[in-house]
């Protein structure tokens, strides 16, 4: 079968949060370098001291390509900045509602009537759904069983989750003795073998 050349490009919308070298650093000083490094498809946001958020709308053949190239470009422009997280990934009911143009009440109602396959939150809020936090990709996969979901949104959600988890695993491995990391890895593989 012939491989598909010139795959159609889509615009992927996602966010990359960086922590700057010093909390007193002015994030605006990086804008020139970011633009020069090809981040003119990002909208910079400043708020919390010492952090810079880049909201990208990047054209690429797939979400992973879009997100990885964005992180690489931004990191090149700001070598001293540290990646914090990629989004959209972790979110609660309110943010999900906003993302989908729905009300919170709507989303909560859906969670009640489709409770059976509702994914586990990453962190369950005390009492009810209001404070719970989920991976967006888990929620979108659940939603896709009863309504149509934007495939581009699902793609960036999955990619964000993947990169965040890889990054977290890497950071953890720096903190813990290799032996322990390997042992934990073996345990998980033993208990939950990978699908064929």
């Amino acid at each position, binding site marked *: 079968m012939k491989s598909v050349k010139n795959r159609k490009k889509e*615009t992927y*919308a996602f*966010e990359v*949060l960086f922590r700057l070298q010093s909390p007193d650093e002015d994030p*605006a*000083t990086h*804008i*020139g370098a970011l*633009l020069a490094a090809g981040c*003119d*498809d990002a*909208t*910079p*946001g*400043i*708020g*919390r*001291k010492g*952090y810079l*958020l880049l*909201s990208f*709308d990047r*054209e690429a053949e797939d979400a992973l390509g879009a997100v990885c190239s964005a992180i690489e470009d931004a990191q090149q422009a700001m070598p001293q900045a540290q990646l914090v997280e990629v989004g959209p990934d972790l979110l609660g009911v*309110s943010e999900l*509602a*906003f993302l989908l*143009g*729905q*009300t*919170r*009440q709507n989303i909560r109602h859906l969670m009640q009537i489709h409770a059976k396959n509702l994914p586990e939150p990453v962190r369950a809020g005390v009492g009810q759904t209001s404070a719970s936090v989920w991976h967006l990709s888990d929620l979108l996969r659940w939603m896709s069983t009863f309504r149509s979901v934007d495939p581009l949104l699902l793609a960036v959600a999955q990619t964000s989750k993947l990169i965040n988890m890889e990054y977290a695993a890497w950071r953890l491995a720096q903190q813990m003795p290799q032996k322990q990391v390997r042992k934990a890895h073996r345990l998980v593989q033993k208990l939950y073998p990978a699908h064929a």
Partner: protein
Amino acid sequence: MSKHPNKEIQSAIEYAKSKAFTVEQGGSHCWGQMYCPAERTHLDCQGGAHCITSILSTPKNPENHAKRLRKIVDRCIFFGSSKDEGNNNDEKREK
């Protein structure tokens, strides 16, 4: 203040102003900045990440940039147009 050279971005700027955002022109490498109406950084609002948003002079795709600016304004928990019925007192603040 002069208008942004791109019509769509200028329209987004006007939208932001209509939602109580302050827009200032100038700054290095940008056309200007848009300031959220809240008085201080609020972590529960977009992670406190868009209190100040840079408006680019020549973004790669002006239409996308304009859409982004509008999205940021709409997500603003103080004066944005979040769709919600009922209990909002933990999110909205009276001016």
